[in-house]
């Protein structure tokens, strides 16, 4: 029987299948089910500073009577912030006291330094096993150059790590012009893991109304390809564990990620699409495949097809379609 234990978030996990930050983990019952069906760890839905601020604006608009209660609403964002923290604290303590054994990881996404520190501190004190910093800066601000963005990432990690003593991991996007170097440098900050890549909320256009609308929410399976490439490229140079995220919806993809060098994978859409059984199936199928291919421990699988291990690593870096390296024959199976 294959041994599926692995290590990520600085913690030992009984399965490489981590439930990513989403609504799947929003209640104690749900977390217990995820554990029951074999998840190795769960990441709670991100605490978003932006969302708190949006809720504050909503409350403000609902409650404001102009100057007459301006003083009452002036610091109301703190009420909302503290209320949100209370909610998370309750979820975490109820989950822990109801016997959940798998690690519970809190996720935060902020823009201001003081809020990163505030949420990190509060969630750590609630008893979560690790923190995942959902670190992302949208490079759409023409006033902010690459160096400023880079500094922001490192300053934030440093700030959070001085506030808490539990493991701090990060989840990033691929929006870096020096992605390899970034991952290498980030891995040397002492973070307990880097997850590649955050999946975006995407925007679409309704051509009838000319308005912006949300694009399809759940990921398409093929979206795994970007994470696969970069796990393959950077796993040999990263000083910390890596995890893959986005588009992992069957066991083969999970195995590919592990082979590329990931220690674990984060799944969300797969569970939304196929239910809790998906997790059990994944574990079973990976296990079966490992047995059939003589892998006793998951560890033995990790990195066997990374850029360090494969015969032709430069393929990981190929992006241009050239006839010399194999072209389109006109009958590609989608």
């Amino acid at each position: 029987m294959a041994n599926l234990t692995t290590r990520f978030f600085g913690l030992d996990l009984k399965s490489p299948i981590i439930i990513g930050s989403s609504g799947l983990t929003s209640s104690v019952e749900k977390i217990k089910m995820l554990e029951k069906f074999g998840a190795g760890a769960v990441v709670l839905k991100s605490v978003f500073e932006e969302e708190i601020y949006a809720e504050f604006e909503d409350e403000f608009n609902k409650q404001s009577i102009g100057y007459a209660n301006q003083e009452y609403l002036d610091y109301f964002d703190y009420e909302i912030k503290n209320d949100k923290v209370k909610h998370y604290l309750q979820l975490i303590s109820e989950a822990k006291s109801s016997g959940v054994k798998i690690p519970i990881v809190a996720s935060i996404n902020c823009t201001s330094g003081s809020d990163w520190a505030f949420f990190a501190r509060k969630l750590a004190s609630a008893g979560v096993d690790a923190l995942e910093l959902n670190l992302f800066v949208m490079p759409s601000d023409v006033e902010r150059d690459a160096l400023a963005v880079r500094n922001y990432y490192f300053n934030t990690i440093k700030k959070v790590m001085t506030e808490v003593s539990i493991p701090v991991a990060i989840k990033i996007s691929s929006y870096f012009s020096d992605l390899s170097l970034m991952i290498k440098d980030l891995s040397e900050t002492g973070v307990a893991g880097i997850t590649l890549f955050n999946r975006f909320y995407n925007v679409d256009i309704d051509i009838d109304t000319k308005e912006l609308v949300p694009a399809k929410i759940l990921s398409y399976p093929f979206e795994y390809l970007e994470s696969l490439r970069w796990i393959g490229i950077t796993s040999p140079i990263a000083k910390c564990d890596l995890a893959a995220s986005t588009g992992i919806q069957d066991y083969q993809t999970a195995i590919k990620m592990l082979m590329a060098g990931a220690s674990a994978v984060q799944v969300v859409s797969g569970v939304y699409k196929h239910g809790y059984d998906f997790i059990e199936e994944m574990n079973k199928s990976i296990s079966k495949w490992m047995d059939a291919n003589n892998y006793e421990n998951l560890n033995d699988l990790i990195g066997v097809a990374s850029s360090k291990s494969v015969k032709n690593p430069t393929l990981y870096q190929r992006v241009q379609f050239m006839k010399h390296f194999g072209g389109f024959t006109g009958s590609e199976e989608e």
Partner: protein
Amino acid sequence: MTTLEEYLKDRREQEWRVELRKKLKGKERTDIPRVHMPEVDPNERVKYQNMEVNTGLSKEQAIVEASRCMDCANPTCMEGCPVQINIPEFIKNIERNEFGEAAATLKQTSALPAVCGRVCPQEKQCEEKCFYKTKLNKEAVAIGYLERFAADWERESGSISIPECAPSNGIKVATIGSGPSSLSFAGDMIKLGYDVTVFEALHEIGGVLKYGIPEFRLPNSIVDTELENMKQMGVKFEKNFIVGRTASFDQLKEDGFKGFFVGSGAGLPRFMNIPGENYNGIMSSNEYLTRVNLMNASSDEFDTPVLKGKNVAVIGGGNTAMDSVRTAKRLGAERAMIVYRRSRAEMPARVEEVKHAIEEGIEFINLANPLEYYADETGRVNKMRLQHMELGEPDASGRRKPVEVEGLESEIDVDLVVVAVGVSPNPLIPACLPDLKVSKWGTIEVGENMQSSIPVIFAGGDIVRGGATVILAMGDGRNAAKSMHEYLSENN
């Protein structure tokens, strides 16, 4: 039944008002500059907690100021008044030296004009809509100062008109709390002939008027005079009585109470939940002001202590923050500082309070927000770290949002910190009435007639609105009295 418009028109056409308007030409009126309220010199007044800053207009000053009022055919000032006091009528009464009439006019609508004249943010209410401001771009008529004048004159003259009360109908009603909304409710109900009891949890009647607003802004004696009047009218006051604890609502119903008005206010303190906030020397504005205003802690003759500081920081920008920082100054602070995350112009405090504070030497540290507090080995705060901010895009309040300037932090020495970032609705009553519909944030939900989800329970003031103004609370009390009277009349 006349509409308000018709009523005002009628009153305006009274002979005395017509004559009064003719006495001065328009330009003679508009040429008069706005009166300056006499104030105690700042260096003198910071030595005393109990010295009122504004000393009040003299008779002559009041009459001249009143003559500035144009007695507009369409009095826009009234649009700014949350309870629509008949402003032109009371002002014109002052002009014609009928101060008692002026007070009576005020009292038709406002239960506590001596209070409102002092604490209303007139610059955002009546005075903002004054003809002088909107059409002439000049300083408004000093409506607030005149209101205070008339109310004070009546009180000091000793000839306070006790309004006539309807014959007693024997129906018992209760208020929970004794602040402006409850007092306003009680005042109206007693006039309608009800048997009114005001229940107050603390040992003094008056609610926030006593424990929250300092002597130098609103002397407690003024509140006491109003209470005396109400006692004379027959209102009963029960101190040290917590409805829901000392006796339950059911017990009170058994005792014969048919209607309840909940005016328990927003007396729950708020903290920011940042590191070090529980060190000694860091307290809520409620605690600080209650010690000084209610318990007279600044006086040696009273037993309650209050912590004094050399370097005092008050976090916040509203009236409570102003009250706290100016109290600290009076208690001997060398540095009395306001730490507010927005700019000075955006502070919600009354303009006059900010002006007085500046005169008194209060330091304003704007665009700064506390991050953490530090303490000495006994646990007493001795330092705080500040995050500096800049103004970003406007937020829902229309003011520019304070945004952190990454990495820009500083530290200041403090030995006393007062957290004045707002207050929340008092949870006592909702806690003892599980069927009462309450919002997520603790406010009691009521209809337009101030009736709650429990038919015999009405509510108003801060417990319904969250922290808001005294005048709105009073308006709610009057509204609730009218509604409860209708309800009890129908259901008896």
